[in-house]
């Protein structure tokens, strides 16, 4: 298929969709608790999930702080708190109510959790979709563009399952004892990576213990080095368009194009490698020569089982000789020997 033709057709399709959506001319009103693109509310407290409210229902953060000074003290030190100190739009100017919804009913009732329109966390009466919708009011672009329909969204993860909004979370003491993590400004997650992700992906924790691994335990790469947990259009929520593009973003020397190419390498690094860790050398799924034997049964090599005495077996196996197995640009590199 011609890539250009496909690209043109795609652009046309996108343009038609965008034009028909009215989205270009119908931006959401700031501060409105839109139900668009959110799951329908579950049968929860109807009062607490009123989708839109008149401006008169907002009381302002000053009123909230009168009773919730402690929360305010913590919140003001977070990035969100600091942004809202100097709001850029009416939504941010609403402070507490930009996330929790209008507070008049809460104030008039003299407090009480049941009168808070949107509450977050495990004990919230709001559905996950309702909680997330409050976050999406601001966080719907950039890395969150593909949140809708993403694996984490469809498995019912709430933003607050991973993120802590009310206060900055500093590195837990116990994190000193487990894994390191790359430096990050983002202190709004409940735990440092990778611990945060490993809570739900326990097998990855096991794989990271393997002897052959990327510098993951050492805190040089982490889950979000390759994956976007907020959703991506790519397989396995990868940041790049394909597995190979992801791997080659660091291993650029293996990108080519080469004069002599090894087709399974070209298609998918994971044909031979297990990126999350392996007990075989070079993150191989199975050690040499078997990883090569799986596909190669040719007349140029003896095709016996390669007793241990063979140079095809010990040291680096097949790559003792075929060292540029990822592709060669040498005019004599047709067998990846050069």
């Amino acid at each position, binding site marked *: 298929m011609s890539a250009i033709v496909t690209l043109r057709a795609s652009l046309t399709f996108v343009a038609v969709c965008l034009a028909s959506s009215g989205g270009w001319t119908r*931006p959401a009103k700031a501060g409105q608790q839109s139900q668009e693109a959110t799951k329908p509310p579950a049968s929860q407290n109807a009062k607490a999930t009123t989708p839109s409210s008149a401006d008169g229902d907002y009381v302002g953060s000053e009123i909230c702080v009168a009773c919730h000074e402690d929360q305010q003290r913590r919140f003001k030190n977070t990035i969100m708190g600091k942004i809202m100190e100097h709001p850029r739009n009416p939504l941010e100017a609403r402070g507490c109510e930009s996330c929790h919804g209008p507070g008049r009913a809460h104030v008039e009732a003299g407090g009480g959790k049941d009168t808070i329109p949107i509450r977050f966390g495990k004990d919230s009466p709001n559905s996950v979709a309702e909680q997330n919708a409050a976050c999406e009011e601001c966080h719907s672009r950039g890395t969150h563009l593909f949140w809708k*329909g993403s694996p984490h969204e469809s498995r019912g993860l709430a933003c607050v399952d991973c993120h802590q909004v009310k206060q900055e979370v500093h590195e837990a003491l116990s994190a000193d004892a487990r894994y390191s993590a790359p430096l990050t400004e983002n202190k709004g997650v409940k735990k440092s990576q990778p611990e945060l992700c490993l809570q739900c992906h326990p097998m990855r924790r096991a794989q990271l213990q393997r002897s052959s691994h990327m510098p993951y335990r050492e805190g040089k790469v982490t889950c979000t080095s390759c994956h976007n947990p907020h959703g991506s259009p790519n397989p396995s929520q990868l940041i790049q368009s394909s597995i190979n593009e992801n791997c080659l973003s660091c291993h650029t020397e293996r990108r080519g194009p080469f004069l002599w190419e090894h087709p399974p390498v070209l298609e998918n690094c994971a044909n031979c490698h297990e990126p999350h860790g392996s007990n075989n050398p070079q993150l191989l799924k199975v050690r040499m020569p078997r990883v090569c034997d799986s596909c190669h049964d040719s007349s140029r090599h003896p095709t016996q089982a390669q007793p241990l005495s063979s140079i095809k077996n010990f040291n680096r196996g097949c790559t*003792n000789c075929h060292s540029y197995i990822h592709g060669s640009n040498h005019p004599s590199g047709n067998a990846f020997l050069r």
Partner: protein
Amino acid sequence: MNTRHLKQFGVFALLILLSSPRMLAQQDAKDQTKDQKTEPKKEQSQSEQMAHGSVEFGVRLATGDVYGRPDLQNGQCLGCGTPFDPTLKTSKFNEYGDVRDGFYVPRFDIHFDNLLGSRNYFSLLSQKAVYRDQSYLATFGQYGKFKVQFRYDQIPHIYSNTTRTLYTQTSPGVWSFPAGIRAELQAAVPANLPSLMAGTGSFTGQGVVTNFNFITPSILRRAGTILGSYDLSAKWNLAASFWRESQKGVRPIGLIMNSSPSASATSGFGMELPETINYYNNLVRVGTDYGTRAWSLQASYVGSFLQNNVDALTWDNPFRLTNETITTPLTGRMDLYPNNQANYIVVAGATNITKYARFMASISPGWLRQDAAFLPYTTNTAINTCGNGTQACTSLSVLPAPSLSGSRQTLAMNYTIASTAWKNVELKATYRQYDSNNNTPTRTFTPVEGDASAPGPQENTLFGFNRKDLEASGEWFFAKKSSVKAGYLAEWMDRTNRDVAHSMENSFFTAVDWTPIKDLLIRASYRYSDRNPNVYQDPNASDPQTGAPVPCTDTTNVSFTADQRCLRRFDESARLRNRADGLVEYSPTDKLTLSAFAGTIQDNYNRTGSNRPTPLNFLTGPAATVGPYYLYGMLKDLSYNYGFDADYALSPQVTLFAEYSYERYHKRMITRYRTPPGTGQDILTCAGCDSPNNDWESVAQEPVNIYTIGTDTHFGKRIYFSAYYSLSAGKGNVFSRPLGDPTITTGTNDFLLTGTNAAVNYPETVNRSHEVVVVFKYKLTENLYPKFEYRYQQWDYKDYQTSPMTQYMGCVSPIPNGPPPPPNAVPGCTTPILTSNTPNPVGVPSPYYPYFTVGDPSSARYLFLGVDQPSYHAHTFIATLEYRF
């Protein structure tokens, strides 16, 4: 004062400087103190205490031992002359780290808001300052407005600490071997080479290996990133970044000077070298994104440029100094990875197309280019069969082009519609396409393999593929945190110049998330996939006379095909995949959380369809040694895992945790031992050349058990204690066995899997990693937190592929029960070398690796680096003081 001390002094001075910001924060501190006085019962949040950051500094000491290589212990270095004790600091313990003794700054974190009365902030974070694994992150900006950020990160990577070589790098990428030794080796009688190399027998005390020097192959990545981000409004952002990474060092690479190291008894030289690495990676990213709740759009350009400063590796043939012939080159030359560039445009958007539906799309075309100048075919002046068949292969002029003009275009497209048209139901449809077109010119070359063999003209092959996925799924949210999902995925794969031109995979999947009670979550998912190629035809499974393809089903063609007919490559062939995962989380009380998980992926390639419709087994019925198989290559690829986690809070101050997981990998393949028939023969007239009686099976199995147990404990508000122990215990086995009838010793079906061709098991590999960590932290004052940390790490590693490695060898044989050699010792290593006995009897174990014989089969000449990562145990003590200001 040496450099190290200078660095430490620098860090100390930096800390003094860093402490000065406290003065800036003095007013805040006073305010805080006042608050504490006025509200003594109100617990101060940690975030407030760290409003301006922290510095942790102290001392570190690591001690331990590297073991498992008795041959390399100090004073026991048999045959290597120079006593050597592999050090802990260059062992696997430090593979990606830099654990050294002395002053240590694990981290600092400084943050200033409202700089000089403005709304700007500045933050500086660091980890492991000054050491080779250091990283820094500095940010200046205004929240919600702009940000300028600089990141610097170093990643060391040590490959081995048992490496020795006589090669020295005389200029970048040029490795020389001492001429005197080359002359000596060239003059030696082949039978004397093992003794001459090892310094045994009549050459005691004068072995070549004796002179080898120890090196530590390693690379260091240094990466700096500068990023600028500006928010035009809350909805609109502009961002640009530049990342530049330097990779420098050496890593082991294997090279041969022939088409095979065992091509003949007089040639087939091979050597392992330190490959010179000197790369620069450059990445430019410029983009913008605009988003409202209803629609978002983003566009960016990404450019990635690799610059390799050493484009070739040149080395001496250690076994030859003069008299170059076609099969005995004096030097070799390798083309290292060429400069390349990739440019991508990424456009993505999302919009609500109706009240209940959202459309998301991304389109990313990419252009990959590579046009580095070619090297000549060889450095071997004796070869003159290039170009038109009579031209010198050392000349650039005989190449069909000066460079590749390599060009590949990619196109990634994704379109998704997610809809919530009905209450509690979400529907989703996705179309995804990835296209990779190779637009590189096709040319005919006359390669010289290994600088010593010129098999004839060959044309480069252009591979490409196009993958299309269409997915539709529906999910019903039947209760809070409970849903049922079902869907279908179709994947079409089109390939250029591979065995399968077109295949399709149909997948059905379902998932259930169920929260029957508040504290119980049950998750389960299952996926069934069936991949079928339209036709599977390996282009190398063709009649050598006519070139006509020989299909798997053909039972009449008696030609010996280059590839085994019915060989199937697992990434293209028919496959049935079953995948299931489950997770249960239960928190019966606030104190206890239990979770258990299990999963399996089962790939079955042993099917009919595009394979053979009837079994390929030679022995059938009661005599069958294995179940029916319909292809050669991978038959099964299975993995299983299960485990559990438990967290129990004995009290608000004491938490215990335990984790266990088990994994098992199982891969099974079947292939055939084949040898080309002699001239005028075919597979029916040659004894056992291509007979199913020489089929053999191999199974690779890896069980891994992982245990962790620990506690997090707070004693009052001042003392924190954490301790845990973990063990990751893995084993690896490769079992192999013949499937035919060994009693047939003549004729077409002659059983040949005997002697050095026998299909035998490989020795078990062992991989056990223990870790004990104890952390004790004390809150001395509001600002001072002394901490003591102890780590014990032990890694036991035994791998038949690397543990026996020494600098000169041609074979390895295990001696399962130790000396004397049992009758079932694997044959093939009949001329042991580097033994402590003279003369060298067959089967005497190598001092380098007990129960193994290291030998020279007299047909290969290979100088290795001896790359291994021996076992170690290490104690690390860290005492630090964290100062929060």
